[in-house]
Structures are given as C-alpha cells and as structure tokens.
C-alpha cells in the first residue's frame, strides 16, 4: 500500500467529522445521491458502449483484428468555479506570452542570455535549440501556437505548473469528446448548472492557424500534417482536421516547387499556406533533418525560411519546454513582462548543480526525479511510492549523468471522486488547459483532466493506465 499523503480534495471540505461539500460540487453530489445504483451502473455501461461505437473516436490502431484501446472515461466531472478559472486563465496567458517572448529572443537578440538570467550555454547547447530558426521572423512572433500547460493542485490548495508542453501537445480531442459524451449521457446535469462551453475550440484553433499564415494572408489554406494512420494519436489528427474543415495530409501528399508548398489533389496541385504539423521537428524535412524520414516534406525548411509557409508549432520550441529550462520560466515572466508570475512553479533542483545534487542524493526517497527530456511518465522516479531497491537503482542512473535529471518534491496531486470497481473513491487528477496564441491568446475554459485510476497513483498519463474526466468551469 502506498503511504497516504495529505492532499487537496476537490469535492469535500477538510473539516473533521462529517465533511461538507464544496459549493460548486453541491449540485453534482445531490444528483449522484438521487441516482439509484442500477442507473449509475447502466449509464456507465452506456458510456462504454457509446465510446466503443461512436468511439471510433478513442481508437488506437491495435492488432490485426482491428481491436481498439479506449482511454477510460470517468463520468464524474471535475469542477472549477469560474473565479478560480479566471485567475488560472490570466496566469496561463502570462506564462505562454513570456515563453513565446523567450523563444523569439533566443533566436534573435538573446537579451535574456546577455542579462545572465539564464545561462547561455544551457540554451545554446540544448539539443532542441534549432540553428535554422536564428534570425527568422515569425508572424506575431508566435512560436508555440498550441501550448498544453500541465497544472496540478497541491495540498495547500494552490495550482502549480508541472510542465509546459510547447511542441505538439495532444489530448484536446478527448476534452471535446468528453463533453459531448456527458451531454449525451446526462443532459439533465447541464440544466442544473451553467457549464461554460468548450465546443468552439476547433474554431479558435482555425483562427490561430490562419494567424500563422505568411505575410498576413487573408484566406490561407490550412492543413493538418499527420505521420499517418499507424500513429497512436491519429484519431486526434483526423478529429481536429475534420472539426476545422481542413485537409488531413501526410508527408507524401505535399511537395515543394518554386519556393512554395503544394498538396497533390485530384483537381491538380493546390498551394498550402499553413501546416498544423503533428510531426516532430526531426522528421519534418529529410533534406534538412533526418534523411531517413518518410514523414516529412523535402525542401519544407527552405520554404519556411523564405516565409512562404507557416508552421504551427514553429521549429525549435523544444528548447523552451525542456525540464532544464522549466526552472527559469518565472524569471522569464519577470524579465519580459515586468510582472510577478501568477502561476507557481514546482520547486526544482537541477542535478547538474553540485549543491542540488547533494540535496537530492540525501532526500531521494521523498523526491520525484525526472529526465530532462523525458515525457509520458517514462524515465522517472517517484521516491515515496518506490521500493528501496528501485530508489538505489535510480540513484546509480542519476550519478552516471546528473545533468540529465531534475528533482522535485513529491506533490500530492489533488483528488476527485471517481467511479472505481468498489463504487466511488478519490483518485488523483491533473489539468491540461490548451493555450492558443495567434494575433492574441485564446482558450476555452477548462482543459483536459487526467485521472490516475490506480489507488494512490500519481501518474495520470494514458500510456500508464490513466483515464480522463470532463472538466467543467461553472458560473
């Protein structure tokens, strides 16, 4: 059994004895209490069935038989009061603005490096620092058009940024489909309280893409570039393309001629102005990057550099969401915006520093240790839930290459009631809002709530058995 750590309960008030329910969850609690267990069970079966059927949606290309994996969906929503969301929204906007300013800066004047706020070598020698971006001017100076900022709520009730995802963050299709599913299963819930909509996200996304068009074109042709139908996120690529009403293309559909990008269509070639690419930097252009890539478009980089096509997100954003850059984000806010950061960072020890390393070595069993470039919940140590043997094995890995790791205190993620086999029980959750940057910053209220379905688990990644919930921002 994992140790019980104090945590913030999203639904219940902490007062002893018989705990009360927070104001914004009252309606849901009443509704749950009024529902006979048979009906709850029936609705959960219906949800499963719908996801399987409609649920072409959550398909992952599986085995030969065409079987599909579904990401578990929990029918109890995660609720955020509007006032709380407004504060988060202001913080997200501020943070993403600063990050975009930072990316523009490091590929231009490098003021922040000259001012010594961030060590220059840390940025310039980073694998994700993209020489090809130096001096290139992007529309609206936006680099990360779609950013996914992972937030967790600590036992002190405050939100902390766990990480910034500035490359090709995914999951937004789940956010929209979860809402569709809830409205279909429990329409009566939406009559009880005013839930702010999220369905207009694809429209905002399309606006954002259009704003990334070269030289302020008025009616640019936007496409979504996918690695193809064997990619695990293919459903989402197809979903966003369909929702925006644009073509879903693969690398082989595009070609470069006379300084522009075209797609091959049955009506002849058609020029492409903005590519919402869901293909990693290294695979985008075999002439410039990995020569063995079949996913990209030969010559794309030259067109991009000439300013004849927009890419979202831009190349070279990885340098800003690297976990070794993360500790400096609050300083970026202060440096570029001359404001105090609204969103807090999790305290982070950079193990390349001798003092930090020494601290981490002394306290390893209480810390979370992550690889600088890791993602998806892989390559990390969660001290408190690991065995002595696991901790020692990880210690050896750290000592072999300390600069590859950061350490953080083990945050107690907040919990939200969740349907489990035995009924309803608290499970840990996080929140990923999607921040769109075009001519201005936009988002829909809420985001994707991920839930760790294992009791006590703090790992919410779907690749590690996590599920999702609908996320409500309520008046």
């Amino acid at each position, binding site marked *: 059994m994992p140790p019980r750590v104090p945590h913030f309960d999203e639904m219940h008030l902490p007062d002893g004895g018989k705990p009360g329910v927070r104001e914004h969850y009252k309606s849901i609690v009443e509704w749950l209490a009024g529902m006979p267990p048979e009906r709850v069970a029936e609705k959960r079966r219906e949800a499963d069935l719908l996801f399987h059927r409609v649920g*072409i949606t959550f398909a992952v*290309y599986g085995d030969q*038989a*065409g079987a599909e994996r579904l990401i578990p969906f929990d029918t109890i929503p995660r609720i955020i009061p509007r006032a709380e969301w407004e504060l988060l929204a202001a913080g997200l906007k501020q943070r993403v603005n600063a990050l975009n300013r930072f990316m523009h800066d490091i590929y231009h004047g490098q003021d922040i490096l000259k001012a010594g706020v961030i060590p220059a070598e840390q940025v310039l020698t980073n694998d994700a620092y993209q020489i090809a971006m130096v001096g290139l001017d992007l529309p609206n100076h936006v680099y990360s058009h779609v950013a996914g900022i992972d937030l967790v709520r600590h036992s002190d009730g405050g939100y902390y940024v766990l990480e910034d995802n500035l490359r090709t963050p995914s999951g937004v299709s789940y956010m929209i489909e979860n809402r569709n599913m809830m409205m279909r299963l429990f329409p009566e819930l939406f009559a009880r309280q005013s839930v702010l909509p999220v369905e207009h996200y694809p429209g905002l996304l399309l606006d954002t893409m259009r704003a990334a068009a070269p030289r302020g074109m008025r009616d640019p042709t936007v496409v979504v570039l996918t690695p*193809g*139908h064997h990619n695990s996120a293919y459903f989402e690529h*197809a979903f966003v*393309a*369909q929702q925006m009403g644009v*073509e*879903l*293309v*693969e690398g*082989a*559909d595009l070609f470069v001629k006379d300084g522009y990008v075209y*797609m*091959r*269509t*049955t*009506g*002849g070639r058609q020029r492409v102005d903005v590519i919402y690419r869901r293909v990693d930097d290294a695979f985008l252009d075999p002439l410039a990057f990995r020569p063995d890539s079949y996913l990209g478009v030969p010559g794309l980089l030259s067109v991009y550099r000439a300013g004849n096509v927009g890419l979202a997100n831009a190349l070279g954003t990885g340098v800003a969401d690297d976990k070794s850059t993360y500790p400096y984000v609050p300083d970026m806010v202060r440096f570029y915006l001359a404001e105090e950061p609204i969103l807090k960072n999790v305290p982070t020890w950079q193990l390349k520093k001798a003092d930090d390393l020494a601290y981490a070595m002394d306290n390893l069993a209480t810390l979370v240790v992550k690889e600088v470039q890791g993602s998806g919940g892989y390559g990390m140590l969660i001290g408190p839930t690991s065995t002595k043997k696991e901790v020692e094995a990880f210690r050896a890995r750290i000592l072999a290459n300390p600069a590859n790791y950061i350490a953080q205190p083990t945050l107690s993620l907040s919990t939200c009631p969740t349907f489990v086999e035995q009924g309803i029980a608290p499970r840990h959750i996080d929140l990923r809002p999607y921040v769109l940057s075009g001519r201005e910053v936009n988002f829909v209220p809420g985001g994707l709530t991920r839930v760790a379905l294992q009791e006590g688990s703090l790992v919410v990644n779907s690749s590690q058995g996590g599920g999702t919930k609908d996320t409500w921002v309520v008046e």
Partner: protein
Amino acid sequence: MLSRVADRIFWMSRQMERAENMARVLGVTSNLVLFSSRDEQQQKTLLAPLSITETNEAYFASHKKLTLPALLDFMALDETNPSSIFSCLKWARENAHAVRWQITSEMWETLNATWIELKNFKRKDIVGADATRFFDWVKDRSHLFRGVTYGTIVRGEAFNFSRLGTFLERADNTARILDVKYHILLPRVEDVGGALDYYQWAALLRSVSAFATYRTLYRAQIFPIKVAELLLFEPRMPRSLAACFVQVREALERIEGQHGKGAQRLAGEMHARLTHSDIEEVFQSGLHEYLDECLDDIAELGTRIQRTYLGTV
C-alpha cells in the same frame, strides 16, 4: 480531394469488387469440374481461373500439379497471390483504414468486420466441402459493402472514386469471364450444342448472376452469341460492359477539375463502342480479339485515371 485519399478509395472499391468476381469465377470452376469427366477437360477447366487472372506462372512456380483444392487454396487464400480473395479483402480493409475519416464509419466497419470474419473460415473447409458457402459469403460481403457505400456516403469525390473503382474493376472482370470460353473451354467440334457446352454457357451466365436475366430477355435456348451480347452490350444487365461504362463515364464526369479530359474521352469512346457495336460483326472478326481490345482499353483507362487524379502510375 487529396490524391492519396482518392487512390485509397478507388483501390478499396476495386479490391472488394475483385474479391467478389474471384468468388464468382471459383464458384463456377468448382461446379464445372463436376461435369468434366475427361482428365484433359478437367485440367482445362482448372486452368481457366489462372488464365483469366494471368497467374499461371505464379501458380506453377509453387505447385507441380493442378488440382481443385490446390487451385482454390491459391486463388482464395494464398497470401502471396495478390489476386487471391484473401489479399483483396486484406488490402480493401487496409485501404479503408487509411482513409477511415474520409469514408463513413459504416463502410469502415463493413470492411473491418469482413476481415475479422474471414478468420472464422477454416482452410480445409474452404478448399473442401464448404467452398460454396465461402464464395456466397464473399459475394454477400461485397453486396453489403456496395450497398452500405451507396446508402451512407455523401455524393462527392469519395463517392465518385469509389464508383469508378467498382465499375472499372467489374468491366475488367466481366470481359475476362466472357473470355474463359476462348481460353480454356473451347469445345471440340463434336461437343458444340451438347450437354457439356450447355452447362458451360449456363455456368458462365450464373457466374455473373445473369442466367435468369438471359431467360427473361431472350426467351430462348442458350446461344453463345446471345450470351456475349448480353454481357457486352446489354445496358439493363448490371454486370455487362455497357452498363459498367455508363457508371464509369458518369463518375468521371462528376469529378471536379479540368485536367481529366484524356480519361473522360477514352471512357466516352468505349461507351460509344459498346453502345453501337454489332454482335454479329464482333463474332465474325473474333470475340477473343474484341475482348482483348476491351481489356487493353480498360487498362489504359486505369493508367490515365492513376496519372491524372491519383498521382501514381
């Protein structure tokens, strides 16, 4: 529409139609073998499906003897034979998967379920007692897919390329089936008009679901020249070349864009020829030669479609 997407849809439909026609040919073959008492005649009958699909060499590269079970195994289930029913169903499903979001979920589910159900058939049943049930199943799945497509998909480029694939493939297949008589079943003079000859022509008609139609339209004994006329020129007979080319022409005309003239012209010419040819003249100059020409033109049309719309040759 993206050329890649159109290409997948075109081939998905061709492969499903091809699977159906293969099932028809094999069904007839299994039947005819029963009527072929002489060894020599039986061998000729078994050779027919290989000849019309041009897979003789591939078959004899891996087989010494030609027997019905071995033939059925090769034509129905052999993964290395690109014309086998197995391969057709596999690639139809693979193509559908790649364009799952440009076709309807019903279309995808039909092809996916077909692929999954295929595994319920055991090899020994398909090449043995259950062959007919298997071929009927393949035909049913093809009918279902065509009906689901017609009934669910929006009338746009996906529909056009699906129709184009279906009817170009069917025209090709009907021409090949009709050519069987020339290739293999060429009767000895003393057999003409005999029981075997009758069974062969009747089987050929049945293979394209045209036996009853023949009776209704001609109210006559089965004459080869009438069978040929029915399968070539009769626009009311849905598997005839003439009927196929009505659909091919219409599909090509509905496809947007100005650069498809070459394909449209050839389809128009073929349609005109199938509408205005005289069957007596065709027989005088040779049915086989006429069918050869048709097959060449169908192949050329396929090439033009690939080059013009699908970005591949």
